[in-house]
């Protein structure tokens, strides 16, 4: 049996932070200039009490509403988030109950950022290929905006919240419809995109909540998400092209044989630079950044857009590439 993607859906929170809002709040930020280079015009922000799992749940409900599957058919659910509801229990277990999935289904969370969707696909394919599951629900959800300092331009202009749901089914097919997979990890870069407190290593205290200004004029405390944008960009330039070359080598394909390229939607500037550097024609490269960098949800949202726009069609071969905090990265091919 081979794993295949059947359908996707996504959900964005109602509250929006537009360029206009940011301009009004911080006229000195030159937000219009930033938006020109990031390609982001609005960021959806999770409401008070609205968790990553709520966004994923709404996306899953939209997926079920498409009629491609009923909740009782799902025999495994995987939820990718770095914003779980609780330390204990596993959020995917709570989603099993909230979505009405069978109690015979397996459920687990994976904690990854923008590389996460490729890892979800890899795990789902393994579950299907080893006959452990036949109908896998892949969920992503992230609420990074909750971790951002209001006065930190470097992240506030970029990140948005979202949740997605993707259905994977086992089908009879003569060849794999997903893969091969290339993975990569470099924990030495962990400190360049980090939320320092709130985990077991460093508790939140009054001291960790003290805000400081950095050399670029951005403010944050240890309780806020920190991103070293320049180092993250350098990391991206270092790993994406080699990962793609390795993926093509493993697949025995050339770049020209790929119909659609869907990269993590970090920001427009990075995407365009990568596209030109790798030599991907613009018409094959999906840009779906208008709602901001939604971390692990960005690839499935871009995939959904490509399907809606008819850029992904039956028989299309798509390359998915994710890269994010950890450092962590992954790439794979998906046949539609």
């Amino acid at each position, binding site marked *: 049996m081979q794993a295949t993607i059947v359908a996707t859906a996504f959900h964005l929170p109602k509250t929006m932070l537009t360029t206009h809002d940011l301009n009004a709040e911080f006229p000195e930020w030159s937000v219009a200039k930033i938006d020109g280079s990031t390609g982001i015009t609005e960021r959806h922000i999770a409401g008070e009490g609205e968790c990553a799992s709520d966004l994923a749940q709404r996306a899953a409900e939209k997926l079920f509403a498409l009629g491609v599957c009923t909740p009782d058919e799902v025999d495994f659910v995987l939820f990718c988030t770095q914003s779980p509801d609780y330390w204990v229990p596993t959020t995917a277990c709570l989603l099993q109950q909230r979505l009405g999935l069978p109690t015979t289904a397996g459920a687990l969370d994976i904690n990854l950022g923008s590389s996460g969707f490729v890892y979800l696909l890899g795990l789902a394919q393994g579950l299907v290929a080893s006959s452990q599951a036949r109908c896998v629900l892949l969920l992503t959800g992230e609420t990074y905006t909750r971790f951002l300092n209001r006065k930190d331009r470097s992240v506030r202009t970029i990140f948005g919240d979202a949740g997605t749901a993707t259905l994977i089914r086992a089908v009879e097919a003569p060849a794999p419809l997903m893969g091969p997979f290339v993975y990569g990890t470099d924990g030495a870069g962990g400190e360049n995109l980090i939320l320092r407190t709130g985990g077991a290593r460093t508790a939140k205290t009054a001291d960790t909540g003290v805000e400081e200004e950095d050399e670029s004029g951005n403010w944050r405390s240890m309780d806020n998400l920190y991103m070293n944008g320049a*180092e993250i960009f350098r990391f991206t330039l270092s790993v994406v092209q080699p990962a793609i070359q390795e993926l093509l080598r493993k697949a025995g394909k050339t770049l020209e044989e790929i119909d659609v390229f869907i990269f993590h939607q970090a920001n427009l500037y990075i995407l365009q630079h990568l596209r030109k550097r790798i030599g991907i024609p613009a018409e094959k490269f999906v840009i779906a950044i208008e709602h901001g960098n939604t971390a692990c949800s960005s690839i499935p949202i871009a995939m959904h857009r490509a399907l809606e726009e008819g850029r992904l069609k039956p028989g299309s071969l798509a390359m998915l590439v994710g890269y994010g905090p950890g450092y962590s990265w992954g790439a794979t091919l998906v046949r539609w």
Partner: protein
Amino acid sequence: MTMSREELLREIDKMLELPSGTLQGPEVLAELENWDSMAIVTFIALADSAGSVTLSAKQIGHCETVGDLIALVRPA
């Protein structure tokens, strides 16, 4: 694509929204109005395209002048 020193200066002019021909090399980065974190990211991209060099934020952080930046892409 390898750029000459002059071409790199003009690209940095553009990056910092200065009229073409403004920068010559000795200018102190900290004194340039648009030299900020976005400009650093843009310069990393420029070095990658122009000199096939992947620079770190730390390398750029050690630069004091425009000439120091150019030396990272076109070592003497």
